[in-house]
């Protein structure tokens, strides 16, 4: 006998199941152009805490309090269209100043994450909200539960919390080596297991498990027809995961992907440490963004169908410590890319602003620009806004942040 609660429960479980290719083929593909909702979400965690003044929120000496560390001159600040970028982001600056079509980029500065702890910050970043618990599903799980024909809800590169929809990027190399016949046999075995789970009296956990087994089987069935992944040596170093990411989206294998890179946690010798990790990873990130406006699949250009979010779990304290390092700060800037992000018709845009002590200033939710008695930007606002961007009502999932209208194209 199905109870009232079982009926209530069936809502999302059914949604998750029907997001699988087998039962969702009747639905029109989404995200097929600039006017549609995005189809893919890619989140890149620049682990440890990039220094905002060196990267996404550069300042001149005159713009800040005397005790704020600005480890460069005004001339070192990079021009990026109408905007400015920190000296550690020269690869990004070069990208946007080129002549080729580009993916719109928006910077959002001064987002409150309300923690100075890496682990809490990372747990928040993968949920795009504060006040979290490790039992709480991840943001990717939500995007994945509403996906279209992609076999996987999410792919994760690097260490991240485990969740019900977890699929590690490190699994792909072993799948690359698996013969098609074996993939087929594995898929059949998983589908057979899923069938035994999907009995009339199945609980939501059993149905969810069946969905995961079918999701994995669908991937195995898809892979033989997918062009094999090859590392392109023309890319900058440390970019294999980024290349694999593009391959996964190009071949419509997942709805969302999380990737963590580097270790910008520079408690000792901040300037050289930040520069080192930015040299290691920013060229790859810039190349990744440039490829979005070139790579396509049957749903369109990735720049039209994908939303990228990149940034750190925490910020860096504006003061130097005794080791010439910078400790933790509970605010951070973020980069967003993709046609679905509003840049006011320009190649790029910046929203949010920090003041003389590098603390965030209140802003208008409409324009994203500073406003007296305006709104203090929170990570929760980013989460709620991105869900809205993907056509998902944030409230039933407890995402009660403000909608950042300025980000919505």
């Amino acid at each position: 006998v199905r109870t009232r609660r079982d009926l209530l429960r069936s809502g999302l479980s059914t949604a998750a199941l029907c997001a699988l290719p087998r039962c969702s083929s009747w639905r029109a593909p989404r995200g097929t152009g600039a006017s549609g909702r995005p189809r893919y979400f890619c989140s890149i965690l620049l682990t440890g805490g990039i220094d905002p003044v060196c990267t996404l929120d550069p300042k001149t000496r005159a713009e800040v309090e005397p005790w704020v560390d600005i480890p460069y001159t005004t001339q070192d600040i990079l021009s990026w269209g109408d905007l400015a970028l920190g000296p550690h982001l020269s690869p990004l600056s070069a990208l946007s100043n080129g002549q080729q079509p580009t993916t719109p980029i928006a910077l959002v500065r001064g987002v409150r994450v309300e923690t100075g702890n890496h682990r809490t910050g990372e747990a928040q970043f993968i949920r795009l909200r504060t006040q979290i618990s490790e039992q709480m599903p991840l943001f990717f799980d939500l995007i994945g539960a509403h996906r279209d024909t992609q076999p996987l809800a999410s792919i994760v590169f690097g260490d991240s919390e485990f969740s019900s929809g977890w699929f590690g990027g490190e699994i792909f190399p072993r799948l690359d080596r698996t013969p098609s016949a074996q993939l087929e046999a594995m898929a059949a075995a998983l589908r057979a297991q899923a069938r035994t789970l999907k009995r009339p009296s199945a609980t939501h956990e059993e149905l969810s498990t069946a969905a995961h087994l079918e999701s994995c089987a669908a991937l195995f069935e898809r892979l033989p027809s997918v062009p094999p992944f090859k590392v392109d040596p023309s890319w900058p170093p440390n970019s294999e995961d980024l290349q694999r990411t593009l391959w996964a989206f190009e071949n419509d294998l997942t709805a969302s992907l999380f990737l963590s890179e580097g270790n910008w946690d520079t408690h000792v010798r901040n300037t050289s440490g930040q520069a080192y990790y930015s040299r290691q990873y920013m060229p790859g990130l810039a190349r990744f963004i440039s490829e979005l406006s070139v790579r396509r699949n049957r749903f369109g250009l990735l720049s039209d169908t994908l939303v990228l979010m990149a940034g750190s779990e925490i910020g860096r304290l504006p003061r130097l410590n005794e080791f010439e390092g910078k400790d933790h700060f509970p605010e951070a800037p973020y980069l967003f890319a993709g046609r679905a992000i509003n840049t006011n018709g320009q190649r790029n845009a910046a929203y949010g602003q920090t003041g003389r002590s590098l603390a965030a200033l209140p802003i208008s939710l409409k324009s994203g620009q500073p406003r007296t008695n305006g709104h203090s930007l929170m990570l929760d606002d980013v989460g709620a806004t991105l869900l809205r961007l993907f056509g998902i009502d944030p409230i039933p999932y407890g995402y009660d942040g403000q909608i950042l209208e300025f980000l919505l194209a």
Partner: protein
Amino acid sequence: MNTCPRWLCSFMLAGAVLAAGCARKEPALRAPPMRAVEVDLSILATGGIHRSVTTKSTEAFIDSLLEQPDFANKVAPLLLFGEMTKRSPNTPGPGFTLETNREGVLFLREPCSLQEAVQVHPWWDLAATVRVCPDSYQPTRLKDPRGNYCGSVISSPDESSFCGCGPNLAFCYVDGDHRRQVVASMQDELVKTVASFVTRDLPLRTLFTSRETVRDANAELLYLRSRIINGEPVEAVELSTWPKDGKLAARHEAIGGQHAGVLTTPQLLYFRDNPRDRLQMFYERLWCSGPPHHGKVTADVVLGLGTGNVRVGNSNDRVHSWKELAARPVCTGCHARMDYGAQFFAGYREVRVAPFFVTNEVVPGKGPLYHHDIEDPRGEGRLTPLGFAELALAQPEFGRCMVQEVAQHVFADRATPADLLALRESFETEGTLRAMMRVALRRYAARLALPPPVTSRTAALGELLEQHCGECHADGARAFLSAAWDRPLLLKMLTQVSFGTMPKNDSLSPEERARLVDALAVAAFPDSAVRALASGYFQDRLRSLPAHSLPALLRIARGDDAGREGRLGPSRHLIAVPPDLMQLSPGVAAILATEAAASCSDSKEEGLERCLAKRLSWRTLVYARGAED
């Protein structure tokens, strides 16, 4: 024998009093267990399927499983220390790696000629002689003029020309492989020490207070370095006689209380790379107290400190700043616990600065320990690791945490208050891991033999809130029982109750929590379609069936019934997933499918299809669910 009627136990969640009554008696277990239950019990107790263990009763079956070496050697270390038993520390193998030139001369920076080289008896074979470049030797240099200790990252050959490898090359490894061997020995010391204590059925407390560990010569070297730094003659230690597989031995102490069981093994001391992270990890292991995810750290709070120097240390200005941080509103929620706790380990500085115990860094006298914040003192103790351990183990959080670890391992996310109570009693009376596991497995087996409890889902929100939240929220600043429950408040309550943050005392059974979440969802989302979405998220948490630990799953997929400890592969980080979160996700399914396919292809006994069906049977991979299995 059991005096609690089975029908009553099946309804034990109807009331805490009844549940507590049942908890004190072991449920009846007369009939032989079903096979699926046996398989499940075997996986939980030994990490694999022990088909050779057969007995007539479930009690005897469980006892036999807990006598298997796999329980002490494999399950216990993983249960108590998770990823720390399988992963390298952030800065693996503190020390420098030597290179060898064509003439066989060892060097750190630049090679030198055979004529320039000096002869040394290396720590890894004191009977042998090796040749080393003079700048790479430097036996008398232990600390540079800036106070940085040789052998630390901050004085590494890349950073400074001052240090060499020290007496008998004690700060160095002959090559990368040698370094990896030492890293493996660090992990082995933790795993084998846990196994030794569990095998001997010693109380869990002793694991955190003993001077003894099981270690090989490589691990002993890391202790030897502390003695060198503290000025003791290296000749006093003879590593060549140390047994290859290690031995149980007491560790040398420069001061009384230097060692606190496994807490002062290099694997745990340096698993994370700074004193605060170290303490955070200790509190997670001992008290199950992770970083609070509900703070509200603002820029004003941080900038208000007025300094960039907020690191833990003992100079006057440092002491002032960390004490300020530990007492500051918001910050105190983490820093009172971490920073005062770090004082007990002052002799063990962070791995980058000094990967040794340095006697003159020890803070003299006694100091306080805090839990939740600066308003929550937990007594004072001598400022040594042992002083810390004795204080920490005396707190109720220690027992609660050990109970939680065992409960999560055996019940995943389905432990009831009665289970916790029974485990707590076992901890208080016997205090050993085997005794607690015995209680948990018996309760688990008994539950599987019963139909699932039937409870009414509908209840008035007001009544439920009063019943479960009234103790803290009836009046005062946090009162909400008589307030108007608007959407934001309901969402906050829903979030905190659904994901286990509230109520704070683990007093809700899974069924009670589900009922409260249902009532909150009904109030927050009057629209049934929206409520269906919310229920999937808050009630079901998008979860699938709880699965066994990664090592156990791999053994099943590879067809290794028991005994063999296979490689974990590239997804070894899944070892860190807590048992209550581990599920059969698409990625886990993919890993198991590839492992099973590889193993089945090698096996000539049965066809691929049949073999995969057996190895990938979800019934074996997930926790058994009840009588229907």
